[in-house]
């Protein structure tokens, strides 16, 4: 009994930081509609800066002053990022801001190592809170009690801020209807910057407060960001109270889950999130997202199948690529095969995201399931490569059937988070079910048949499969099913009114995307000769997102181009520089700013430089429209 109480207290103490970070993320999302991926990075920066400051200035004033100053410094960095980077891309599709913040996260990860080194750092204890308090004969650090008290205190202060100041009222108003707030004479620019700064301050404060409890390390950001996403989604996006309740819930689940169900401790939190989302699709305290009042006409160029000329162009490119094994070296070819695999992975995600309008943050699950499906067939049934390549992806299909059924019930960010949860559950199974999957050691010895075992042979195999699959996906886009899917994406109500079953259409799209990702995964297993849990991990899902966004979210062929550019760049940077994340992050940020419509979107803009005069306006009018559009 006493033990349980102590465990509960420790959970509550962990909840404090989690709440601080999550409330910051929630506030930012509520007003700005930005999923700030860099939030974990700011949390980490808060801890590092606080470490340096408290290290330099001892004593109570030095410690508490250091924690506070560190949070303020990081908040200023956040405000700077909002002004310099995010302001430029508010008109880009919503996910582009996610991509930009992801680029910043990559940069921060390398910068932190560059400045503070890769060793874990031990921060000082909090002056006056170095001891422990005896609770029923067990010792609880007195600092934990401070944190436990701090959570409700911050919640109260935030409540006062949002209900008793004009700034807070403006923020609440903007959470509901930004355009109306501007129509009442409020300059949103500064409102956004201040909201972002407050959110980042809370994240950094949460990080700075952690230094007496845990070591400061350069992996802090990823470990917290996923948990914070979970908290925010369970609590309801935009709700500070929700973040508070969910932070306690998640922390207690973590504290007790490890005692009760040690085998599946890692997935209990995600299971709870999945249950909450199925029962309450907008989280415990969330409200249905209002339909975004997006400006009409972002993608005014209708999609169309390729012309014969374009088809011949693509065929020529395929022929040139197919000739590569005749002159390219082995290394180039294996890199080429890897890029091809990712082309298919990105194309399958693109089908779900762009055509279906469903942004999955956990697409790696189906890629990984396909890889594990193939690997398990080889390992337990001695299946030859040909059979494993055909049957292996079925595991991805099955996963998509099961998870997709739940996911398509949601939309927007909540859909994204549920897909993330399922991907994490899948990852945990692969990681913890050691008897079958080998856990962290993976499954080794998944080699291709002899005819495909040379780099040349495998390259041709990969090329053939990828070309056929990508072509099939493209044909689906322009099939009646594809039209129905786009109708459901663009207007759920109107498409239902003409007899399209939106949910089942989206479910089928989810299964299609999952199956093609599974095919890519099975190929990947044979390319590498092994499978590890990382194949299912968040970084793989994020890679897919980056590829689709980089290519151009509103284009048909963006994913292919995005995958080639991103993967080639990543592999090349990895071989050239120690600071590959810094450079890659920087390149992503630059690309986002330079090409807010993605690479292919940008190229299409170039081709259509002079739009036709809309609806009979003179040619002069058309030029003006183009100008206005460019100015937006």
């Amino acid at each position, binding site marked *: 009994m006493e033990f349980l109480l102590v465990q509960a207290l420790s959970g509550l103490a962990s909840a404090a930081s989690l709440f601080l970070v999550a409330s910051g993320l929630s506030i930012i999302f509520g007003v700005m509609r930005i999923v700030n991926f860099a939030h974990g990075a700011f949390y980490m920066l808060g801890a590092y800066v606080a470490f340096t400051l408290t290290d330099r200035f001892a004593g109570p004033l030095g410690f508490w002053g250091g924690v506070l100053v560190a949070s303020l410094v990081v908040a200023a960095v956040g405000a700077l990022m909002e002004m310099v980077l995010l302001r430029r891309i508010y008109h880009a599709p919503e996910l582009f801001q996610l991509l930009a913040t992801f680029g910043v996260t990559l940069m921060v990860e390398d910068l932190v190592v560059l400045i503070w080194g890769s060793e874990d750092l031990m921060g000082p204890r909090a002056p006056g809170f170095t001891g422990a308090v005896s609770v029923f004969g067990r010792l609880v650090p007195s600092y934990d009690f401070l944190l436990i008290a701090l959570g409700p205190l911050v919640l109260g202060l935030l409540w006062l801020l949002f209900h008793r100041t004009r700034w807070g009222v403006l923020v609440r108003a903007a959470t509901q209807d930004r355009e*109306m707030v501007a129509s009442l004479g409020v300059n949103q620019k500064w409102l956004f910057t201040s909201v972002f700064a407050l959110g980042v301050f809370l994240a950094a404060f949460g990080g700075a407060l952690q230094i007496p409890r845990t070591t400061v390390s350069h992996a802090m950001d990823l470990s917290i960001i996923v948990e914070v996403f979970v908290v925010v989604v369970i609590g309801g996006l935009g709700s500070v109270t929700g973040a508070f309740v969910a932070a306690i819930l998640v922390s207690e689940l973590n504290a007790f889950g490890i005692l009760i169900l040690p085998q599946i401790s890692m997935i209990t939190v995600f299971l709870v999130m999945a249950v909450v989302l199925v029962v309450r699709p907008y989280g415990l305290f969330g409200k249905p997202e209002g339909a975004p009042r997006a400006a009409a*006409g972002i993608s005014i160029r209708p999609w169309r199948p390729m012309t014969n000329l374009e088809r011949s162009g693509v065929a020529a490119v395929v022929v040139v690529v197919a000739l590569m094994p005749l002159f390219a070296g082995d290394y180039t070819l294996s890199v080429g095969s890897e890029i091809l695999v990712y082309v298919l992975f990105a194309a399958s995600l693109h089908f779900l995201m762009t055509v279906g309008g469903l942004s999955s943050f956990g697409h790696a699950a189906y890629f990984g399931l396909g890889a594990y499906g193939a690997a398990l067939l080889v390992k337990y049934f001695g299946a030859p490569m040909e059979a494993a390549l055909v049957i292996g992806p079925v595991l991805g299909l099955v996963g998509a059937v099961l998870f997709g059924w739940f996911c398509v019930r949601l939309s927007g960010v909540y859909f994204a988070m549920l897909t993330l949860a399922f991907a994490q559950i899948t990852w945990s199974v692969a990681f913890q079910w050691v008897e079958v999957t080998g856990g962290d050691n993976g499954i080794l010895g998944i080699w291709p048949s002899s005819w495909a075992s040379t780099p040349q042979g495998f390259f041709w195999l990969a090329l053939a499969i990828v070309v056929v699959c990508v072509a099939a996906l493209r044909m689906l886009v322009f099939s009646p099913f594809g039209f129905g899917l786009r109708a459901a994406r663009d207007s759920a109500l109107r498409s239902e009114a003409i007899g399209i079953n939106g949910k089942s259409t989206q479910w089928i799209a989810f299964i299609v995307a999952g199956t093609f990702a599974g095919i890519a995964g099975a190929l990947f297993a044979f390319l590498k000769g092994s499978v590890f849990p990382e194949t299912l991990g968040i970084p793989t899902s994020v890679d897919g997102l980056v590829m689709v966004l980089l290519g151009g979210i509103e284009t048909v062929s963006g994913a292919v181009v995005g995958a080639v550019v991103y993967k080639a760049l990543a592999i090349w940077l990895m071989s050239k520089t120690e600071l590959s994340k810094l450079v890659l992050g920087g390149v992503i940020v630059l690309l986002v700013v330079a090409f807010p419509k993605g690479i292919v979107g940008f190229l299409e803009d170039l081709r259509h430089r002079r739009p036709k005069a*809309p609806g009979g*306006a003179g040619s002069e009018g058309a030029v003006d429209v183009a100008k206005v559009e460019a100015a937006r």
Partner: protein
Amino acid sequence: MKLEVSGLNSFYGQAHILFDVDFAVGEGEVVALLGRNGAGKSTSFRSVVGLVGQRTGKVMFEGEDVSRLPTYDIVRRGLGYVPEDRRIFTELTVEENFVVGRQAPRSGVATWTPERIYELFPNLGEMRRRPGGHMSGGEQQMLTIGRTLMGNPSLVLLDEPSEGLAPKIVEQMADAIMAMKREGLSIIISEQNLHFAKLISDRAYIIEKGRIRFSGTMADLEANPEIRDAYLAV
């Protein structure tokens, strides 16, 4: 002229909505922009306050060209906008809705406080702490006008203030608009309800399919029933 719009063309995507629209409001005048559903009334107003991204043409407010300014800047110069669909902040109380609209006093223009707005709309005074989402349509319409008045505008764009309201409330609304006029405000309302427009307006424009078809005094419109029948009769 208080507000002078000329050569306004607006687009949603590839759809051309407004074609060379011109209209003007004089100092202290109440002007009606009449037209059927979908004629382009709301788009005209949204274009004036900069809420339509793709537009060309000139918007002169108090002698200055505001057509390139961001929405908040236009509004801060004293050009108040009351949207058609009310767009109340449903989570916020009546008082808090006013806080969002509050701007600094402007010289030469009536200064509004919540108390003065409660005098104009006594119903609102009885529900100061009620969330906007828990109010009737008529009360929300009053709230949205009061919220814009809190910005101390010198001209107000009122988009269909009588839409969907009970006849008794419509009368109350007409009284309130006349009271605003007496305070020296210039007002342009968009309407489908000719009867309501007659009660309060000095002049009228008729817009149809994105083009201005008629411009004149209410008496002119009265004298030409064929115009009314052509462009307004349902």
